[in-house]
């Protein structure tokens, strides 16, 4: 078996979609070659190349996951804001129930006062 091509120089991360696709294509070919040989020498060389390509794609994945983390952070603030609005709405709903209760309490207090005023 011929010697695998030397690994390409380290590309800029994140990879462009085209470059990512090219790396994935190369990895697929190396993987297929690995799966179709039992020769230890060939396996060692293929695995070495495969690891280099895989490391580039792993760095790209790590970068993209970290980039998503920043977006999640922004989203967290927005959802928290919405939750605050819902809490405020729940407080307004509670205030209506409390209003009825307070109304009853005031009437009860007036009624009690009237019973203490002679001739009322």
């Amino acid at each position, binding site marked *: 078996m011929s010697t695998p091509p030397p690994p390409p120089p380290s590309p800029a991360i994140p990879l462009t979609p085209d470059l990512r696709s090219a790396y994935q294509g190369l990895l697929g070919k190396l993987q297929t070659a690995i799966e179709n040989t039992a020769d*230890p020498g060939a396996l060692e060389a293929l695995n070495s190349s495969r690891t280099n390509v895989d490391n580039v794609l792993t760095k790209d994945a790590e970068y993209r996951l970290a980039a998503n983390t920043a977006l999640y952070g922004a989203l967290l603030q927005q959802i928290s804001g919405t939750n605050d609005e819902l809490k405020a*709405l729940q407080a307004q709903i509670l205030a209506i129930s409390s209003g009825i209760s307070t109304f*009853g309490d005031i009437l009860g207090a007036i009624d009690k006062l009237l019973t203490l005023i002679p001739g009322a």
Partner: protein
Amino acid sequence: MKCNQNPCAVWISGPHPHRRATTLTRGLTAVIFSSLLLITGCLSSLNKRATALAAATAPVVDQAAAAFNSASTIHNMRVDYDAVAQFDAATPVYNPRTIQPLMSDKDIRVRLAVLAAFQEYVKSVVAITNGTDSPALQAAAKSAGENLSNLGNALAPSVESALGIASAAASTTPTTVTTTSGSTTTTTSSTSSTAAPAITPTVQNGISTALDALAQFLINRKIGKKLPPIILAMDPRVKTLCDLLESDISILKDQESRDYDFIIDQQTLFLREPSNKLDPEQRREQIMKLPEIVRQEKASTQRLTQLSAAVDRLEVTHHALAIEAKGNNPESLKSKLGDLEAAGSDLGNLYSSLSTH
């Protein structure tokens, strides 16, 4: 309508105050209840959508947390296998301190925080749309109804006296007194009457029910006005969340596939190298690990596929909720809300009149 303009005047001065009050209370309670049915119907359908959303959210939250942890665990295993491959290399000299996790603690923590916040949002929407007639509200309405009745009954005699209106007698009790003095027996007959309460228990119950209905109406109207815009504003955020989750899933799926391939390749290379000094039994055990790694990979891929489907369901379910919320604001509903406000105003007049007597 005269009755609604000054309902209490009719109630006090009429020849049959109890019947008038009962009819009035029943009438307005019926108006409120029919109004309530309209708004509650909208809230009920929103609640069904919100409950469906809660059901669609739970698997995403659970499976996403498991997926993040699983991907990190598999990647760590790959790093361990890589350590074996790199350890004997002359350059660079292997240093375990340089290893990088696939996702940092912060990466995972932020994702879980977003999912927890979203779950809180869903729970709040379900709670808000999940009926407004709470036991606490019923108790408050009952208490207010009782106090209102007591006050009405306490004031009614004074008002009737001032207006020169005779109280309706509720019961007449004849009393006969026979006095015997020596041989003379004197019999005296008299009747006494007890004034009926101005507000009977039946009317009191009606008032309590009407107060409960009024509070429910006000609450439902508040929800109908405030909740739909919140849900509609949330919809694009849910789409962003689902897009981010899908992006994560796509990256993790690809990474996991490569990590598993790497592990299998390294294990295979190790077993095929003639330099390894494994005895037949050890070699057999190491070979048997290979199919198990493939089984783990398939299970892992299936979990991510299921998570992806759950994320799709979540987005669709929230969008259905948003459409339902949007449907609550057409012009027809707006005009009906106008009618409801008028009914609420009528009730307000009734209660303010009652409270001044």
